[in-house]
């Protein structure tokens, strides 16, 4: 959905960042994972990508691009970091680059629709066969979106395995060690599969 908010320069971007709804910030950091990709993007959030490819300001693009959203406890903290970095760059510049009219930064939000796949498993061992078959949308829901739903910001796999006490602690550590940022959903699925394989093959 369009928010109706658009920016043509860093000043406009900063002004909207101050007030834009949290969901828009979330979308511009994580939504790219669900969009079709033909190549490995240089920048993994939309703000950095726009600064680089439309404003041609590589300096701010690099500073924005290095932000890891998983390191911020709340989206408001992430918003604050964005505003700080853009403000800092505005202070450095005498003249601001402008985006062409049809390449403005459009602040977007999205609806998440949660479906049931009608697939359930009863034991953690079954993850080994089901994870490689999961759709990318399902990976997003259980591994990334889950962090917004859980108070302790963990993924669904980890939370479920914790129900078994210390029995799967190695596997939990392995899954929690997977960096969900700077990658693709298919790569995340592969990494998850690898952790599951390591654990269940060794303990067979």
């Amino acid at each position: 959905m369009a928010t109706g908010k658009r920016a043509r320069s860093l000043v406009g971007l900063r002004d909207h960042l101050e007030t834009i709804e949290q969901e828009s910030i979330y979308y511009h950091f994580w939504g790219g994972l669900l969009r079709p990709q033909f190549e490995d993007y240089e920048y993994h959030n939309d703000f950095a990508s726009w600064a680089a490819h439309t404003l041609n300001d590589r300096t701010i693009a690099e500073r924005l691009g290095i932000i890891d959203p998983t390191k911020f406890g709340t989206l408001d903290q992430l918003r604050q970091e964005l505003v700080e970095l853009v403000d800092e760059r505005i202070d450095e510049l005498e003249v601001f680059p402008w985006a062409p009219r049809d390449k403005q930064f459009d602040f977007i939000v999205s609806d998440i629709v949660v479906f049931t796949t009608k697939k359930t498993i009863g034991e953690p061992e079954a993850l080994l066969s089901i994870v490689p078959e999961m759709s990318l949308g399902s990976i997003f829901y259980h591994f990334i979106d889950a962090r917004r739903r859980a108070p302790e910001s963990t993924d669904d796999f980890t939370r479920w395995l914790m129900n078994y006490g210390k029995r799967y602690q190695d596997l939990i550590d392995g899954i929690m060690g997977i960096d969900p940022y700077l990658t693709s959903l298919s790569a995340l699925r592969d990494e998850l599969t690898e952790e599951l394989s390591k654990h269940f093959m060794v303990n067979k």
Partner: protein
Amino acid sequence: MSRQIDQYTPITGPDVIEQLHQLAKPLKGLRVVHVNATKHGGGVAEILHKMIPLMNDLGIETEWEVIHGNPDFYSCTKMFHNAMQGSQMQIPERLFKAYEHTNRENAESLKKSLYDADIVFIHDPQPAPLISSIEDHKGKWVWRCHIDANKPFRPVWKYLRNYVSQYDASVFSLSAFAQPLPHPVYLIPPSIDPLNEKNVPLARSECMAVLDEFNIDPERPLLVQVSRFDRFKDPIGVIQAYRQTKQFIPTLQLVLAGGGASDDPEGELVLAEVKAAAADDVDIHVLQLPDDSHRKINALQCAATIIIQKSIREGFGLTVTEGMWKQKPVIGGNTGGIRLQVINHHTGFLVNSPAGAALRIRYLLRNHDKAFEMGIKGKEYVRENFLITRHIREYLTMMLSLIYGTKHRIDLK
């Protein structure tokens, strides 16, 4: 497979279809009405022809109404269309009056259908004022803009906005087209139907017969642009690009194929200009095809070496989608929805001038492997993003949001 919607399973996979059933379940029993200005010609009518039965198939009672007007009404709405795409149109007061009068008249005849519909979709500016005339309507009204409204001519948009702002939501094809409005603005690109006659796989013999009918040589390279004859589609620019390329590749052929739409009074004029520009070049085939020539269009696209859509303004460009579905590389104008589909060096090339198009045509005709690879990528890109199943999914999601007032998360578990 008993249901129409289930026939898409071999193309999309079962999960996509199962998701549609889950989304439709809470909406069963609703009555939805779509209103536009033409039953035939153009992408909107094509989408509705397929979407209406599929929505009914999913258990949502869906109807389609068409408004009718006199030549003044269509002149006015054509000027609106051009103005929404940025042309500075000075519309005479007489035409505004015809527009308003036509909508009031149509409101009278449609009142029974629209008054208590649960959701009403009004497509494009032609029927936009209906909302003012159906007083105390019960359902949610959505304005669906299919036009490239990136830079509308302000006085015309200011006039239309008075009507559009009365709606409960609006839908644009791209974020760049979305205008600030006092209601939720959804971004939903249109789609093609892979089971439509225009997109189903054809036997080689059928393609050959169509080429033979139009005296097109199947052994020589062929450029195909399928579009209604409209200046924004830049058919003259395509002829210029063809001529520049032909100096280097004398065997090149060009097809400009289009039909008329009943709500487009400029078509004949532009067609005459195109014929004049083609002059006596026997390798330029300007084809005016009847509205139901879906299989012929399909055959021409299948026979194309490269699909061209050199528009200078484009709402979305479903002919690009169709070409990509047939595994063809596409050279498209760097505008509107074409940008969403033609990914430079992956599914084709975006161009800004006839010279740019000529350059890319030459490149693709010399690099067959690259052209083939682009075709493969393009088809998969369409499968993931621009089939009618995705379109229906997003409409259903929007309808759920509107009816149940959900925000940001719809949980169907």
